[in-house]
């Protein structure tokens, strides 16, 4: 029953086309937690199955992971309630000004890019530190874990980009961004290029002197992807919002 409710919540979020009509970090965060918790349902089923088999021998370690995912679901539900209340409030005070060229999806995509980038970086680093120092696991499990974590973290960003593409597909490609957005993206790209090369070069050089950094050998590709995503989205958002103050 709980799973059906969650799936219906997420479906409502995605299908409600005006969900991203306002640029709002809360909405982006809610979308992110919603998508991630949806994919965690599958992991929960696998965990529940394992726990049911091992329960007779004592409290299995899977319980800890299970409780962590419950915390994420809790945040998701709290955010749903906050959004519902704020949505009801704003309905009463809505100005209703017509907007032909909307930038809220552009801004929301940057918020979700930051969330995906930061969570992806954190999760793969924590995962690789755990399997190298605390819980050694077979190499196939390491690869599978890195792929699964990367996919879960990046899927919300892919979904928002697809949503943005569906909306923009009717427009000419030259009109997908307005000229300020082009300028913001160009600046953000340059900074991302320089910063990502400097950071990855720093890690590459550090690996020669510190063995503790060797875990990057396994995760270099998702690390680079999430680093670029985080840098690009945060720089674009910074340049776009800079005048707002």
């Amino acid at each position, binding site marked *: 029953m709980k799973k059906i409710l969650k799936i219906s919540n997420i479906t409502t979020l995605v299908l409600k086309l005006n969900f991203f009509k306002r640029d709002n970090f809360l909405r982006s965060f809610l979308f992110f937690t919603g998508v991630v918790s949806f994919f965690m349902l599958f992991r929960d089923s696998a965990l529940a199955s394992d726990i049911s088999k091992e329960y007779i021998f004592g409290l299995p370690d899977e319980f800890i992971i299970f409780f962590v995912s419950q915390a994420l679901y809790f945040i998701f539900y709290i955010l749903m309630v906050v959004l519902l209340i704020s949505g009801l409030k704003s309905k009463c005070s809505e100005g209703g000004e017509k*907007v032909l060229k909307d930038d809220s999806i552009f801004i929301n995509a940057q918020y979700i890019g930051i969330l995906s980038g930061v969570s992806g970086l954190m999760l793969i680093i924590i995962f690789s530190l755990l399997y190298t120092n605390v819980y050694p696991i077979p190499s196939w499990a390491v690869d599978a874990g890195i792929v699964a974590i990367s996919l879960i973290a990046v899927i919300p960003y892919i979904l928002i980009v697809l949503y943005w593409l569906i909306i923009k597909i009717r427009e000419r490609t030259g009109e997908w961004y307005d000229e300020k957005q082009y300028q913001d993206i160009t600046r953000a790209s340059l900074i991302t290029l320089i910063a990502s090369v400097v950071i990855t070069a720093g890690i590459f050089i550090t690996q020669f002197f510190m063995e503790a950094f060797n875990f990057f050998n396994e995760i270099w590709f998702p690390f680079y992807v999430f680093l670029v995503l985080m840098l690009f989205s945060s720089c674009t958002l910074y340049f776009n919002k800079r005048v707002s103050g």
Partner: protein
Amino acid sequence: MKGKRIKLKNDLRRCRFEHNEITQQELANAVGVTRLTIHSIEKGKFNPSVILALKIAEFFKKPVGSIFYLDED
């Protein structure tokens, strides 16, 4: 000219006020950009392209030079 910093300034806010006090969003809709772009131009944080400056001037039915002008520091 050498050594002096030249900035592009504008009277967009005054033009909007004189043009039935239209909002930034209405102007943005008329010239095909986002409201934030108009806001950035007014604040002097973004220099519009020649095309956008011409579109804005055409909308207000004024010469470009009377809306956008160069200012030396």
